[in-house]
């Protein structure tokens, strides 16, 4: 029981890290970046290639993977989304889905459809407390998630750049009048979100070691669900939504049915949205005009 809970929190932590990318990008660009899940996959492949083919140690491999994904995030925004900033949200959504397929197919060309066996990047001994055995991957994932949450909260609330980010997310024109470079702020948001996706990619593949060009899509959709579940646009919401989703999924698998676990996860989303359409921590903004 406790083991399931830990596994759930660990899986949920991965969803939460991915959901943060969705939610931050949504907050600032008001768009759902459906290619976000595929950035995870790219992060996984970069870490895989550098460690397995080039024999790099884990830490530089992870750092390179984060860097590559950050650049990828900025490039995707500049080339695909920025020209559509004045377009309807449907056009942007379709473009995002297009980018997602593009990334998957490029990965298919480079790495083929054969699954790669991802090496476990967390080679520490498991933590054993009595009967309870916590794998080091689970532990590192949970700790990473907590650290990321704290750092991001401090960043958005305490730093000048983080406050500028919140200002841009609320009113781009007014932010420009303050002297804030809106394009640079949006790029920064994509970079942070994609860097987090790389971390999530490494953690996810360490726990579930098959890497394919479609590896990112299901966790991407689940994390999107988590972001909506928690209240899209809200950083603590993404965290809470991710972790709850992970727990529900693992418990669903353990006690109800392995096959139905995804259906259970999405049903919970539907129920929550029926009861509270803004998500668990989503705020309804009362604006005074």
């Amino acid at each position, binding site marked *: 029981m406790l083991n399931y809970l830990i596994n759930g929190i660990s899986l949920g932590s991965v969803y939460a890290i991915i959901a943060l990318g969705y939610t931050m990008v949504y907050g600032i660009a008001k768009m759902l970046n459906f290619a976000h899940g595929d950035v995870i996959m790219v992060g996984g492949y970069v870490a895989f290639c550098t460690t397995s083919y080039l024999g790099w140690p884990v830490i530089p491999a992870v750092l390179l993977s984060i860097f590559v994904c950050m650049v990828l995030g900025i490039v995707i925004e500049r080339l695909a989304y920025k020209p559509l900033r004045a377009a309807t949200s449907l056009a942007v959504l379709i473009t995002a889905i297009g980018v997602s397929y593009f990334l998957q197919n490029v990965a298919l060309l480079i790495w083929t459809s054969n699954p790669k066996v991802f090496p476990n990047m967390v080679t520490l001994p498991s933590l054993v407390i009595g009967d309870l055995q916590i794998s080091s991957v689970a532990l590192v994932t949970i700790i990473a998630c907590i650290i990321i949450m704290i750092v991001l909260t401090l960043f958005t609330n305490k730093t*000048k750049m983080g*406050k*500028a980010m*919140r*200002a841009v997310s*609320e*009113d781009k*024109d*007014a*932010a*420009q*009048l*303050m*002297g*804030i*470079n*809106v394009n640079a702020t949006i790029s920064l948001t994509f970079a942070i979100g994609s860097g987090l996706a790389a971390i999530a990619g490494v953690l996810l593949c360490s726990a579930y070691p098959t890497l394919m060009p479609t590896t990112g899509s299901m966790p991407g959709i689940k994390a999107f669900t988590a972001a909506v579940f928690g209240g899209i646009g809200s950083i603590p919401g993404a965290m809470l939504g991710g972790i709850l989703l992970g727990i529900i999924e693992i418990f669903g698998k353990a006690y109800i049915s392995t096959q139905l676990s995804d259906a259970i996860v999405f049903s919970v989303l539907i129920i929550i949205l029926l009861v509270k359409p803004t998500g668990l921590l989503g705020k309804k*903004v*009362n*604006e*005074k*005009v």
Partner: protein
Amino acid sequence: MSMLKVDDINVYYGNIHAIKGISFEVNEGEIVTLIGANGAGKSTTLNTVAGLLKPTTGNVEFEGSSLLGVPAHKIVNKGMALCPEGRRIFLQLSVQENLEMGAYTRSSAEVADLIASVYERFPRLKERYKQVAGTLSGGEQQMLAMGRALMSKPKLMMLDEPSMGLAPILVEKIFQIIEELNKAGTTILLVEQNAQMALSIAHRSYVLETGRIVNSGTGEELLHNDAVRKAYLGG
């Protein structure tokens, strides 16, 4: 020498020709107002000067250098701030964070002093510094918008309809503050629908009608101009 020189600008919103060849000047130390009915192009003019809109033709010069092609976020650094229509404060940020954003281009060493001087002018904001800006009353939000614009230490402050939606007593207070700011050395370019108030504090004024300047003169002259009285001052 004129501080701001707008030279024959034309501005389009898609196919709509919103500004049809407007020229005007603002000299250092003046209060200049643009008055006119809804849709005359007053806000469009200010947004163009602030760089949010780009003129198709014509030129905007500030202190002798052209602002054409300068992105909006770089204009504030030249010494010009716009307090936009509808206030546009950041409703989800606290009062103090809004002010910090106003000083985005200033060095962090200056920010504390600037905030202190805004609080001195608007003590109400100091009482509420931690509050989320969306919970302020309309008058307080206007004060915050003005305080935020002052945080960049502008030489020229542009105000777009600062009296909109406020009770008469607050309108008077806002106009009093504008005059005080001007006396303290800030040049003012003011857009108002409340022509009576605007003309009474203005050194000079321009009347806009459907994208053109149709009249200009000192505030006093326009207050007594028959056409202006009929159109904007209720006879």
